[in-house]
């Protein structure tokens, strides 16, 4: 499978993997904002999650509703094996392109 995904999609998948069991939309957004320093709009995040799910790169479990969510359920995301493959491909593609440029790019 040779799917390439966008930078933001990669970040979202990586954040979900970083978060492990506790990966749901709010925590993903927080992690991206804290670690990458990138401001993420909620709408964009939800649409990206939808898209990744449609591409079968992630799936989710449904948590039981809690009172502080007004009785609404929560989706907890996991990256699927296909998602992991795509991430690997992206990484190796990037590393190939980085090869030989460390000196130049590292300096700047």
């Amino acid at each position, binding site marked *: 499978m040779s799917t390439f995904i966008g930078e933001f999609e990669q970040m979202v998948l990586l954040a979900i993997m970083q978060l492990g069991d506790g990966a749901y939309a*709010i925590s993903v957004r927080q992690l991206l904002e804290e670690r990458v320093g990138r401001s993420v709009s*909620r*709408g964009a995040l939800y649409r990206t999650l939808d898209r990744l799910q449609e591409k079968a790169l992630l799936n989710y479990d*449904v948590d039981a509703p809690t009172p*502080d*969510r*007004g009785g609404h*359920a*929560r*989706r907890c995301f996991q990256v699927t094996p296909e998602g992991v493959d795509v991430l690997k491909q992206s990484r190796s593609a990037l590393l190939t392109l980085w090869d030989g440029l460390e000196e130049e790019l590292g300096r700047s």
Partner: protein
Amino acid sequence: MSEQRHLQRRPPVWAERVLRWSLPAGILRESVVGDLREEFLHGGLRSRMAYRREAFSISLRYWGARLRKSLARGGRGSGPRRGGGSMNRFFHDLRYASRALLKRPGFMIVSVLLLALGLGATTAIFSLVDRALLRSLPVVQPDRLINVYTTCRRGFPRCSSSYPDLIDYRDRTETISDLAGYTWYPASVGEEGRQAELATVMLATGNYFELLGLNPAQGRLLQTQDGDEAAAVTVLSHHYWRRRYGGDPSVVGRDIRLNGTPFTIVGVAPPGFEGTDLGSDADLFLPLRSGALLNVGAAASPGIFENRGSRWIGTLIARLAPGATVEQARDELLALSEAMREEDPDARGPRSVTVDESSGYGLPRAAREEMVTFVLLLMGVVGMTLLLACASLANLLLARASSRRRETGLRLCLGAGRARLIRQSLLESVVLAAAGALAGLLVAQGLLRALGGFQLPGGIPIEDLDITLDWPLFAFAAGAALLTALLFGLIPALQSVRLNPADAVRGDGRRLEAGASPLLRKGLLAVQVGMCLVLMVGAGIFLGTLYRGLGVELGFPSQGLALSRFNLTLLNYEGEQAMSFVNRLKEQVEGMPQVASAAVATNVPLQVGGHRGTFVEVPGYTLAPDEELRVEYLFVTEDYFETLGLPVLQGRAFAAGDREGSPPVVVINESMARRYWQESPVGRTVILPGDISAEVVGVARQTTWRGLDDDPINFVYLPLRQSPDQSTSFLTLMARARSGSGDGGDAEALLPLMRQQFRQLDPQLALSSEQTMGDQLRTVLMPQRMGAFLLSALGMIAVLLSLVGVYGIVSFLVSQRRRDIGVHLALGASRGRVLRMMMSTVLGPVTIGLMVGLAAAVLLSGSLSAFVFRMSPQDPATLALCAAALTLVAALSAWWPARRATRLDPMRVLSAD
């Protein structure tokens, strides 16, 4: 906050609702709503505002995604996904509706045009009405303000007041808490290093601004002591401050020269306030007593403030005392005026007073009633247009629905839900109404711009009113159109889904027609025809008046006359100096090869404003009690009658010898001669104000003066040379072009040449107007021109609409009754008979429409009587002509589709079943 209460905190209900509505049903909706709820309670969305913003932003993302997806799908044959959320279906239906409309561009264009014209005209005219009549003064409690006028004689209820009158009205009444007076003058404004220009100056009593409750934008406004001391101070109007000084605040305290006298600028009036008259645009406000420093008009006459007989303060405005009503004030002022007359019977005290509510801008008094009628007329016409547009739209929608029954049937057969079909049809109406509203907005803006070129009765240029589009009103009109579209989209939709789909698909005409829609359509057609006739009659009457007005006998030939108005007082020309300017000007202009003759006068016929009236005595004629001999008078040079082309019927015109020092002479007009003398008045005397007895040397022919339809006015012409001090403020140079071919020569071409002559004599002199007598005639006929323009345009649209309506119904019936027609033809009916049969289907509605229209036209045209001139507003010829024309149009538009019916091949029609 306890944990329990904290959990009960709820996010904004509507925002959450929108969010739910925007998201596809299922776990996605659940989890997103839950996430936001959680963040609202614990996280980064604590404020309700932030929640709303985020909810709307997420909703927008999902809508956008849907729209992109549905556009990408192209919708070809793809229905909505099952369970795909209501938004999905909505977008699908919206796309379907738009495509269905675009598939029949003719229908779409006609409907949108109809709505655009109806909405646009309504909004533009109502915006005008709102600004001209309904909007109140930008002052404190405008509903507590009244206007007070002194009645000078019978039939003239609103004359100017004298200063002693003003003081009495103010001080001797309980129902009035304060009263101010004002009058207008032009003044020449000059400053070091700047070009002199004309400005409009309002002379007002010192309490004027205080009475209105206004606050200054800069510095201060006029105060009572300014008036008492005749201080050389002025307040700029906001727009003048912006225009001349670029809104520079440091202008306060600076000097400005008015007619050569320095005045100190003490402040700037609040924005939007330019005086209390409609269309008035005061540039500067001055204390009433300081008018003497301007050296112009009555305000400069010595003793004017003590003279009860000198009525020169144009308008008095008063504020009612707390609790007092307009009626109480009127009663009190009437009683006071009676007392004043009794106290001092010789001093020509006020005959009576007139008290008006000043709820809106005080219109110039001559214009008030005429304008109200005119504007109401416009509103009526425009309201009718909106109604007509709605009726036509309804008819179009019904026609369209009929032609689509087959399609509806097919879709029902294929399993489409009835609710869905109805919704789609309603959505089409909404799309149509939205497009119409958008186009209507453009039409309204364009119309407002076009109307700027016209004037309201009373000579107020519409441009000066700064009319902006009235948005609430536009919303109202658009709402009416939407409602029409929805209603007449719904009726046929409900009918068609009740059909037996099989009948619809087979196209069985008779069963299809069983609904109420043909009857409804015929009813609407009758309404259309009726309203169309009313508009046509209105247009016909205005056009008739315009035609008669342009051809009216003015008493002099109007072609080839060029007029330039100027004001010598502004540049401090006085007496002999002014006279010699006039003489040199006249000589130079007469010396031009293009000019046949030239004259200077204080006034010319058909001029707006500047009329002068006075009272004279005729020895030997005894006035009846209550009778006054009021005359219009004007000062003219000796060539006046020759230049104007006004024949002197008896005696002589003025001669060069009638100058200062020679015995006073006058020329009077025909109506005065007939009324006050049994035989020829030439050689008799008239006693002018100041006990000057003047000899009547000639009688000039009657001429129209203010308007085309005025009653005969008594006229006294005086030689300008005999009274050089009197009248140098408003003068008109009149030149008649030398005619090459006998058609009166080109007056338009003379104006720039005349301007050059002025410039040669005094480059500082600014002309206050330049126009031809033809222009002036057109100004006088402005209401008729505007009425004729609007009603003709709307009438033409109405005729077109009726044409489309009749054509639509007949062609619809022809297509629906093909089978019947085929049977008739097969059984040997003649083609003529079939033609008659089809045409007769619209006979009923057209006849009813014509009759109702005629009745309505007769009833409504009474409101035109103020503008109709030398013809009856119920002119039978116009009524008959319009009705005949409309009948012809209806017959032609029925004949065209009916003719198709006669060309059907019966064999083919019958075998098609």
